[in-house]
C-alpha cells in the first residue's frame, strides 16, 4: 500500500529547472535510497516533501491526503498536519546548540503539547537508549562527535513517531570512521520496518539495506527499482557512467 505518492513534481530556481516531472511512490516499510551526482536535484526533491522548498507544479500526498495537488498547496493547517507525519534528518544535524540532548528531543512534543512530561521523558530515554546515547542525555551538542550528533538528530526525529523518515545525506558531513555508527542505527530502523527515504552517497548502504533505489540525474529519475538490478546491472547509460565513476573512486 502506498503511503507517499509524488506526481510530476516540478521546481525551478529562476531559469534553472532542478526538478522535471518527478514521480514515484513509497510503500509502507520501503527503504528508498536516492542516489545521483551532486546537483541532480535529490536533496531538493527530499526537501520539497516537507515544504522546505516550495514546488512549482505536481502533487504530493501522504496516506491519500494531498499536501499539494497540481501545484496548489492545501490549507496551511492541513500541510502542517501532513508534514507532522514525516521526520527529517539533515546533513548538518541541525541540533539546537543551546539545549541539552534530552531538551533537543523533548522540546517539540512539549511545545506542541503532545503527551505528558513523563511520557515524553520516558520516550526520549528509550530513543536515546536505542541510538546508544543514554549517557549523553544531559550534555550539550557541542560536546558530541559528529556521529553522536547525527544519532541524536535521528532520535529527535523519532520523537514525533513519524510514518516516514527522510534522510538528507546523513553521513556526508561525517569523518569516514564515524559513518558506521550512523548507518548502523539506520539499519536497525529498517529492520523495525520504518519507512525511510535516504538521499545518500553510501552505495553499500543502498545495496544492503534499501528495498528500492532511485537514480536521479539532472532533475529527472533516470532509473529505479530493485537495488541489485539498478546498482549491478543498470540499463541506462547515465546510471552506468555514474556508478562507474563512484565505484572507481
Amino acid at each position, binding site marked *: 500500500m502506498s503511503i507517499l505518492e509524488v506526481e510530476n513534481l516540478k521546481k525551478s530556481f529562476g531559469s534553472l529547472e532542478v526538478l522535471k516531472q518527478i514521480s514515484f511512490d513509497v510503500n509502507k516499510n520501503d527503504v528508498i535510497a536516492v542516489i545521483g551526482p551532486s546537483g541532480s536535484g535529490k536533496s531538493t526533491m527530499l526537501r520539497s516533501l516537507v515544504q*522546505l522548498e516550495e514546488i512549482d507544479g505536481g502533487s504530493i500526498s501522504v496516506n491519500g491526503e494531498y499536501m499539494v495537488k497540481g501545484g496548489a498547496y492545501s490549507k496551511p493547517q492541513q500541510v502542517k498536519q501532513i508534514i507532522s507525519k514525516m521526520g527529517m534528518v539533515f546533513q548538518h*544535524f541541525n541540533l539546537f546548540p*543551546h539545549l541539552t540532548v534530552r531538551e533537543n528531543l523533548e522540546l517539540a512534543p512539549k511545545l506542541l503539547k503532545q503527551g505528558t512530561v513523563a511520557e515524553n521523558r520516558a520516550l526520549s530515554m528509550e530513543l536515546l537508549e536505542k541510538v546508544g546515547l543514554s549517557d549523553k542525555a544531559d550534555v550539550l551538542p557541542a560536546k558530541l562527535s559528529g556521529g553522536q550528533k547525527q544519532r541524536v538528530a535521528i532520535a529527535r526525529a523519532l520523537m514525533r513517531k513519524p510514518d516516514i523518515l527522510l534522510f538528507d545525506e546523513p553521513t556526508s558531513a561525517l569523518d569516514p570512521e564515524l559513518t558506521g555508527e550512523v548507518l548502523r542505527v539506520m539499519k536497525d530502523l529498517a529492520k523495525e520496518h520504518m519507512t525511510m527515504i535516504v538521499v545518500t552517497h553510501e552505495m553499500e548502504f543502498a545495496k544492503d539495506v534499501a528495498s528500492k533505489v532511485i537514480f536521479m540525474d539532472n532533475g529527472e529519475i533516470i532509473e529505479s527499482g530493485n537495488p541489485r538490478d539498478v546498482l549491478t546491472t543498470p540499463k541506462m547509460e547515465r546510471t552506468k557512467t555514474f556508478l562507474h565513476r563512484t565505484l572507481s573512486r
Partner: protein
Amino acid sequence: MSFDYLLSILKPMLEGAQATIILFIVAIIVSIPLGFLLTLAVRSSIKPLAWLANTYIYVMRGTPLLLQLLFIVFGLPLIPVIGEYLVIDRFVAACLGFILNYAAYFAEIFRGGLLAIDKGQYEASKVLGLSRWHTMRHIVLPQMFRIALPAVANESVTLVKDTALLYAVAVPELLHFAQTAVNRDFTIVPFLLAGIIYLLITLCLTLFFKWLERRLRFD
C-alpha cells in the same frame, strides 16, 4: 589632603553616581527590548515598517548623542504651539534620549546576532512542527542573545561612560559634582575620585557580563 576632605566630597559624588546608575539601569532595561523590536521591524516583510525602522536607526546612529539630548531637553519646548506641552523633567527627558539612541545600537547588534544563526535551525524547527513564535522564542532568541552578548557588554560599558553627557543638559550627576568640587576647592582630587567611581561601575559590569557569558556558553 585629609581623609575628612575626601569623605566630604565623596558624599555628594556618590549621590551624583546614583543619577548615573539610575539612568544606566533605566536605559538598558528599556532600550534592549526596544532594540530587539526594531530588529524585527527591520526584517519585517511589511516594507514601510522596515523602511521606517531603517531610517530611524540611520538617524540615531548618524547624529551625535549629545545633539539628540540637547534636542529633546532644550529643543522640543521651542516648537511652536505644541512646544509648551513638551517641557518634561530634564532627567526624564535625558533618559528618553538615551533609550531612543541606544535602542538603535542594540538593534544593529541583534541584527548581527540573527544573521549568525544557521538557517538549518529554522528548517529543523519547521520540520519538527514548531510555530514561528515558538521558533523565535525557544530557538532563535536564546541563540541570538548569546551570540550578541559580547557586543551588548561592550555597548553597556559605553553607556556608563555616556551618562556623563547628563552634564551638558544640566542634570546633576557624578561628573557635575566632581567639576563643582574642583572649581570650588582648586584641587584635582575630585576628578581622580570620579574616574575611580566610573572604573568601579564598569568593573562590576564587566565581571557581570563575563559571568553571564560563561553561564550561557554552549559552543
